[in-house]
């Protein structure tokens, strides 16, 4: 079903029952934050500075607290991860990032219940991307700005109005539950939407032979590219922190002043020299070149081996925010040639 939605009124209804998150902020810094009304959200952002992964794999998260000392220790696990929540205004590349992380975190014999619980409690209302940035290359990764996979509902902004379309049963129920906030869509709007889609897809149409790139990466273990990039890279880790699919974390214990000892998990980065440093001093990825190689090989070779698709969504954040202009797209093109 698809209808014109009065978004402001819908959000007023939703916040009564759900925690609602949407892009908040401006071009300097933005992220998905809780909102109480439409005015707090900024749906005109191309994509947020901080990726949506923060809501599924928080930058820092308490795993449990340790009460008592010595022989009287007990552990208090974190309870009740979150209420039912709605993420509103996530672009296709963001949602794809969550889909890829879901493969890592909920696959295998030991699924991560923290991640699973969050995914289960979340309804995603996507937002068609109408204006890709010059660093965007989602189409090359098989995502496109109008991609709807992983969303429950999707919004498209046409002539200042929002069209809302349901993509599954969960989404369908919105129309029944909040009938007052929807109005019928007219033919003109639909035509306008289709035209818009066409023009956006035309703008974002880069295609890359990822299979060929993987073959070349696998064949040339010691590709001179890694050395070349490592000379420029300063290992700041921003590419991994802001990457919607980078999964790595550290686990460590901290006690704030006057607070209980807690075990935390925090984002970590394969770009950091101590990421793989072992207690004896041995470090299998001690050289910058090895770390650069790990980052690109992980996304475009290992991830494909393990999960049958690349670990990248083409969101372009790593290109936009790299302080020394390491450009993942340029690298892929170079590998190919």
């Amino acid at each position: 079903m698809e209808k014109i939605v009065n978004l402001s009124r819908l959000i007023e209804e939703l916040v009564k029952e759900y925690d609602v998150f949407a892009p908040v902020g401006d071009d300097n810094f933005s992220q998905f934050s809780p909102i109480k009304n439409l005015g707090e959200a900024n749906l005109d952002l191309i994509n947020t500075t901080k990726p949506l992964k923060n809501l599924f794999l928080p930058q820092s998260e308490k795993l449990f607290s340790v009460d008592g000392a010595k022989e009287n220790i007990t552990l208090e696990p974190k309870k009740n991860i979150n209420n039912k929540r709605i993420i509103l205004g996530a672009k296709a590349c963001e949602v794809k990032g969550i889909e890829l992380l879901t493969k890592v975190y909920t696959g295998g014999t030991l699924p991560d219940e923290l991640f699973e619980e969050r995914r289960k409690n979340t309804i995603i209302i996507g937002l068609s991307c109408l204006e890709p940035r010059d660093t965007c290359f989602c189409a090359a990764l098989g995502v496109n700005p109008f991609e709807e996979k992983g969303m429950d509902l999707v919004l498209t902004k046409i002539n200042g109005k929002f069209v809302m379309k349901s993509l599954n049963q969960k989404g369908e129920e919105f129309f029944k539950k909040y009938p007052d906030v929807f109005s019928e869509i007219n033919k003109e709007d639909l035509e306008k939407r289709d035209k818009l889609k066409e023009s956006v897809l035309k703008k974002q149409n880069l295609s890359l032979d990822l299979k060929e790139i993987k073959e070349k990466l696998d064949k040339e273990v010691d590709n001179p590219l890694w050395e070349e990039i490592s000379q420029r890279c300063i290992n700041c880790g921003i590419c991994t922190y802001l990457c919607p699919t980078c999964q790595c974390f550290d686990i460590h214990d901290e006690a704030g002043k006057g607070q209980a000892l807690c075990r935390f998990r925090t984002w970590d980065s394969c770009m950091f020299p101590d990421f793989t440093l072992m207690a004896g001093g041995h470090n299998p990825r001690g050289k910058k070149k090895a770390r650069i190689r790990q980052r690109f090989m992980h996304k475009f070779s290992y991830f494909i081996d393990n999960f049958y698709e690349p670990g990248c969504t083409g969101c372009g954040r790593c290109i936009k925010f790299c302080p020394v202009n390491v450009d993942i797209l340029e690298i892929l093109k170079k590998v190919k040639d």
Partner: protein
Amino acid sequence: MKNIYLPYLMVVKNIIQETFDVKTLQLVFKNEEEGKNFSFLPGQFCEFSVFGAGEATFCLASSPTRKEFIECSIKKIGKITNAIHELKEGDIVGLRGPYGNTFPMDLIKGKNLLFIGGGIGIAPLRSLIDYCIDNRADYKQIEIIYGARTPQDLVYTRIFDEWKKQQNVNLHITVDRIVGDWKGHVDFVPTYLKELKPSAENTVAITCGPPIMIKFVVEALVALGFPDDRIISSLEMKMKCGVGKCGRCNIGKTYVCKDGPIFSYGEIKNLMREF
């Protein structure tokens, strides 16, 4: 809701000073019920917590056939191992696991076994050695070659006698150099292996130790006629989660924590392309 990062609470029952920098901790489950449900096989590992210091990865050094304690043998070398060495009997620690694959239990059944250990690398081997001794009928001749830097660095000297008195078990001890009073063999482990010339006939070789030792041991084993799939080793990588999510223990597409830590030399050769 469950939480895979929540460890079992363990009581440090006994602490055995193996060498000046290696201690074995004998642990029991604080909650007996959890202990009853805990099962593992030789080769698997755990994440060991000292609350406040953090978590680190160690092999389960005791045999699952000996249910009284779970043992970890730990060399004092970094932040967390230092904290472990500070522990007293009765303290509570955390343990997550068992994680990873096991030694190839089907492959070794009915075979002669050649164990080659160096330094603290004897710990994962010990789990399997004791397991084999407790299931003696399933295995043929057992040869153990074990070496350390000096006589003072030999771990498990307290159980050497128990191994030696087993039928069809031979223990060959060597040290890199003599410190103090030592009447035993002096040589590096790979050199001693070449000298002993064990037969590859119907035999599986299992080795663990410092990377440089493993490298030369494997060369010697290949020269002795051991095929790649009958040379088994345990790999070591930095780990945090132990369950394939935290992203640091991979060698190429292989995650040592969930695809390993036990690999055959054939598999290791493929992995080493990545370095």
